C-alpha cells in the first residue's frame, strides 16, 4: 500500500523531471534574442514547408508559356522591344512612312512619332492581313472570314459568305485587290465588292505579292505558288512540298518566297530556284529591298540577310518567334510572337524568383524545396539523435567491453569521408532519398554518441545513480529514468546541431546529383541550375535556395549556441543534480 503510493509519487516526480529538463532549454531560448530570432525563422520556414502547396504559385514542374505582341526594332547596335499587345502580332506594314500592325484578338495599331496607338476595331477575330493604299483607304483580313474595309475614317465589314480564315490581303488600286485564305480560298476586290475567284488549289494560301493589277504571286502550303497574270491563276512548277508562308516582289519582277524548314525560293522573272540559307527552322516573313538586299525573319528569333552572294544571320538578342518584318526608316522592324517558353526570366510579380532554363517557376520550386529540406533535416536529425543518445547511454553506463566495442565502431564511422561515402552508396545502388537519409544518418550519430557518452560517464558516478543501484533498480530503469532526463538538454542541443548539419548535407548531396532526381529540394534546384549552365548569369535562380540554407543553418546555430549554456557548466553554474 505504502510502496504503491511511493511509486505513484515517484512517477509524478519523474514526469516533472522530464518536463523540467525540457522546459529549461525553452526558457533559455526565450531569454536570448538571437536564438529567438532563429526559432522564429525556423518556425516560419516550417510553416512554408507545411503549406507549400498553398504557397506555391504554380506546379513547380509546369513549363510557363508566354504569349504577347511585341514589336522589335533593330536600331544600329541597339535593340528595342515594345510590348503593345497581350496576343501575338501577325503582320506589320509601313504605310506612308508609318508602321501599321495587326494581331490576334482584333488588334490593330499604328505608330506615330514613336508611340503606338491602338485602333478601335469592331471585331475580336484574329487578324492576319493588312493592306492600305494610303492612310484613308485600306483593308484588314482575318479569321472567321473577316474582311474589314476602311474608308474615310469608317470601318465596314464585308459580307463574303466565307467562314474560314483569310491569311493575307493586298490592295493594288482602289478597284483591285486580292485576299487569300484557308483551303485555297481567293477573293477579288473590284471596287465595290469582294468576289470569290475559282481557285486551282485546295491548299491553304498564306501570302500575296502583287506588282500591279496583272502581275503577282500567291503562295501557300505544300509548295503552292500561284501566278497571277492578267486575271488568270496558274500553278507554278516548284520542286518542294514545304509550306510557304510569305512572298515579296519588286518592280523588276524579282520575287522571293519563304517557308517552313528554312525553305527559300527566288524568282528571276522566268523560273523559281531553291536557295540554301543557313537556317533549317520556320521562316515566316520576307522583304526585298533590291535583288542584293533581302531580309527574312522566322521563329526563334531568326533574322537573315542576303547580300546578293550569301546569307548571313542578322545578330539579335531575341529567341522569341518573329512573324512579320518590315523596313522602317531603313531599319528592321519585326513583330511577333507566337507562344514561347518563358525561359530564364528575371524576377517579376508573376515569377518572384524568375524562371529556370525550361520556363519553370523558381519560387514554387523553392517553396517545395523548403518542405523537402526541412523534412529530411528533421527526420534525419531525429533518427541520428535517437541512435546517438542510446549508443551514448549504453556505452557510458555499462563501460567495459560494450563501451569499447561501440566506441571503436564510432571510430570507424569517423574514418569515412561523407560525400565519398554517399557516392559509393549511389554507385552500388541508385540515387534516391534513402541514400541521402542513410549516408547522413550513418555518419552523424557518431558525434552525438561521443558527446552523450562522456556526459553519461560522469553522470553515472554521481551519488543518485549509485543510490538507485543500491536500492536495486534494474539497469534499464537507471538509464532511462535516472540518467536520461539529465542528458535531455544535451540531446536537444545535439538535435539542433544535427538538423543544421543534415540540411547542409542534403543540399550538398543533391547538388552533386546524388539525391532523388524528381524531388525538389534546395540542393536539387542548385544542381539543376549548375547542369543548365545558366547559373553564371541567372542570379535569381541560385540566390534564393542558398540564402535559405544560410538562414536555416545560422538559425539552428544561434539556437544551439544559446543552448550551450546547458552543457558547458562554466558558462552558467554547475548542472543541477536532477534529484535535488
Amino acid at each position, binding site marked *: 500500500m505504502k510502496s504503491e503510493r511511493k511509486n505513484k509519487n515517484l512517477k509524478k516526480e519523474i514526469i516533472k523531471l522530464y518536463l523540467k529538463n525540457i522546459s529549461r532549454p525553452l526558457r533559455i531560448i526565450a531569454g536570448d534574442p538571437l536564438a529567438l530570432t532563429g526559432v522564429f525563422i525556423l518556425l516560419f520556414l516550417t510553416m512554408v514547408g507545411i503549406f507549400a502547396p498553398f504557397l506555391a504559385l504554380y506546379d513547380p514542374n509546369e513549363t510557363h508559356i508566354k504569349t504577347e505582341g511585341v514589336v522589335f526594332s533593330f536600331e544600329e547596335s541597339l535593340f528595342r522591344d515594345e510590348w503593345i499587345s497581350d496576343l501575338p502580332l501577325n503582320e506589320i506594314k509601313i504605310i506612308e512612312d508609318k508602321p501599321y500592325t495587326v494581331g490576334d484578338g482584333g488588334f490593330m495599331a499604328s505608330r506615330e512619332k514613336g508611340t503606338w496607338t491602338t485602333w478601335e476595331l469592331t471585331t475580336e477575330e484574329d487578324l492576319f492581313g493588312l493592306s492600305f493604299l494610303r492612310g484613308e483607304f485600306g483593308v484588314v483580313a482575318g479569321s472567321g472570314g473577316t474582311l474589314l474595309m476602311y474608308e474615310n475614317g469608317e470601318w465596314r465589314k464585308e459580307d463574303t459568305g466565307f467562314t474560314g480564315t483569310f491569311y493575307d490581303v493586298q490592295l493594288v488600286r482602289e478597284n483591285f485587290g486580292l485576299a487569300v485564305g484557308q483551303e485555297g480560298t481567293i477573293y477579288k476586290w473590284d471596287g465595290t465588292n469582294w468576289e470569290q475567284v475559282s481557285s486551282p488549289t485546295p491548299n491553304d494560301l498564306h501570302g500575296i505579292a502583287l506588282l500591279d493589277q496583272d502581275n503577282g504571286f500567291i503562295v501557300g502550303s505544300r509548295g503552292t505558288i500561284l501566278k497571277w497574270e492578267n486575271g488568270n491563276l496558274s500553278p507554278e512548277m516548284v520542286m518542294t512540298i514545304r509550306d510557304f508562308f510569305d512572298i515579296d516582289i519588286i518592280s523588276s519582277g524579282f520575287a522571293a518566297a519563304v517557308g517552313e524548314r528554312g525553305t527559300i525560293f527566288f524568282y528571276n522573272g522566268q523560273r523559281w530556284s531553291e536557295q540554301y540559307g543557313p537556317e533549317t527552322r520556320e521562316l515566316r516573313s520576307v522583304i526585298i529591298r533590291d535583288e542584293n538586299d533581302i531580309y527574312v525573319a522566322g521563329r526563334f528569333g531568326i533574322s537573315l540577310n542576303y547580300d546578293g552572294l550569301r546569307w548571313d544571320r542578322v545578330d539579335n538578342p531575341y529567341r522569341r518567334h518573329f512573324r512579320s518584318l518590315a523596313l522602317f526608316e531603313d531599319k528592321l522592324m519585326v513583330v511577333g510572337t507566337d507562344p514561347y517558353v518563358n525561359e530564364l526570366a528575371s524576377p517579376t510579380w508573376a515569377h518572384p524568383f524568375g524562371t529556370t532554363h525550361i520556363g519553370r517557376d523558381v519560387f514554387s520550386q523553392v517553396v517545395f524545396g523548403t518542405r523537402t529540406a526541412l523534412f529530411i533535416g528533421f527526420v534525419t536529425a531525429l533518427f541520428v539523435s535517437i541512435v546517438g543518445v542510446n549508443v551514448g547511454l549504453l556505452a557510458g553506463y555499462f563501460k567495459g567491453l560494450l563501451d569499447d566495442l561501440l566506441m571503436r565502431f564510432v571510430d*570507424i564511422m569517423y574514418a*569515412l569521408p561523407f560525400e565519398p561515402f554517399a*557516392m*559509393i552508396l549511389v554507385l552500388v545502388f541508385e540515387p534516391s532519398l534513402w541514400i541521402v537519409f542513410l549516408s547522413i544518418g550513418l555518419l552523424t550519430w557518431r558525434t552525438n554518441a561521443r558527446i552523450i557518452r562522456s556526459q553519461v560517464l560522469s553522470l553515472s558516478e554521481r551519488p543518485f545513480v549509485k543510490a538507485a543501484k543500491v536500492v536495486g533498480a534494474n539497469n534499464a530503469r537507471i538509464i532511462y529514468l535516472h540518467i536520461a532526463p539529465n542528458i535531455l538538454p544535451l540531446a536537444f542541443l545535439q538535435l539542433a546541431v544535427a538538423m543544421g548539419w543534415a540540411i547542409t548535407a542534403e*543540399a550538398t548531396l543533391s547538388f552533386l546529383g546524388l539525391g532523388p532526381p524528381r524531388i525538389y529540394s534546395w540542393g536539387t534546384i542548385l544542381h539543376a541550375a549548375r547542369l543548365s549552365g545558366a*547559373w553564371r548569369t541567372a542570379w535569381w535562380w541560385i540566390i534564393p535556395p542558398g540564402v535559405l540554407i*544560410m538562414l536555416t543553418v*545560422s538559425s539552428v546555430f544561434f539556437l544551439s549556441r544559446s543552448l550551450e549554456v546547458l552543457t558547458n557548466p562554466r558558462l552558467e553554474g554547475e548542472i543541477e543534480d536532477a534529484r535535488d
Partner: protein
Amino acid sequence: MNKGTYVLKRLGQSVIIFWIIITMLFFLFRLGLPDPTQALIAEGLSREERALVQERFGLDQPLGTQYLIYLRNTLRLEFGTSFYYKAPVAGIIHERLLNTLVLMFLAILISYIIGPLLGVLLSWKRGTRFEAGSIAVALLFRSAPVFWTGMIAIMLFSIRWGIFPASGMRTIPFAETTFLTKIFTLDFLHHLLLPSLTIGLYYVGLPMLIMRNTMLEVMGEDFIELCRGKGMSEGRVMYRHAARNALLPVVTQAAVTIGLAIGGQVVIETVFSWPGLGREMLQAVRNSDYPLAQASFLLMAAMILVMNLIADLLYSYLDPRVVYRGGK
C-alpha cells in the same frame, strides 16, 4: 602507459579500422554488384575476354578466396584498370591527388593563418562590436554551403568582373609539363586563388573560434599576470605569450581538417571544374567506373585515418599534461 606503447596502440587501431573499411567496401560492392564484369559487357567485351578478366581478379573463385585476392591487391596498391580511362587506376589517382593537395594546402594555409590571428584579436576585443561582427561574418560563411559560395564567387569575380578565371586549372591550350613546373606558373596561381579563397573562408571560422575560446582560458592563468606585472604591452602578452600556449587545439584541429578536406571538397572541385580527386570520383560514380571510385574512396579514408592519428599524436606530444590512456 608510456609514450611508445601509446603510439603503437593508436597505430594498431588505425590499421584495424582501415582493414574493417576495406572489408566493408568489399561486401558492399559484392552486395550491389555480384559480378563487376557485367558492367564491362556493355563496353563490347567478348565472352572469352570476360572469362579472362574473371580469372585474373579471381571472380570465378568462391567469395572467401575473392576476398583474399582483393586484400592482397589492395595491400600491393593494385587497384586494377579504370573502366573509363582504360588505364591503371594508380596513375590517374596519383595525379588527381596532387591537384587536390595543392588546392587544399593553400586553402588550409589561408584559414589557419588568418583564423588564429583573428581569434587572438577577438579574445582581446572581447565584448566589443568588432567581436560580434567578426563572429557573425565567420558564421555566415560557415553556414552557407561552400559550393554555393563558390557559385556566387564565380558569378561575381569571374563572369561579372572578369578578375579570375571561372573554371579549370590552367588556360587552354597549354603544354604538358611536369607537376612542379605547372604549379609554379602565374596562370596556375590565377586559377588557384578563387577556389582556395572560397574554401579558406569557409574553414576560417573554426580555428578562429577555437583560438578565441582557448585564449580566454589561457588569459586567466597565472603566468599571464606575471607577464603583465613585468610591464609588457598587452599586444606582446597576447601574441607572444598567451597565443603560443593557446595554439595547441588549433594545430590538432588543422590536422583533422586536412584529413577531411582531401575527400570533403568534392563540391568545390565540381563547381570550379578543378581536376582533383573528389571530382574524379564523382565522375567515376557517374561512369560506373568501379575500380577508380573504390580506389579514390580508400585513399580518402586512409587520408582521414592518417591525419586523425597525427592529430592525436601531436596532441600528446605537444601537451605534456595529456596522460596516455589509450584514446579513452
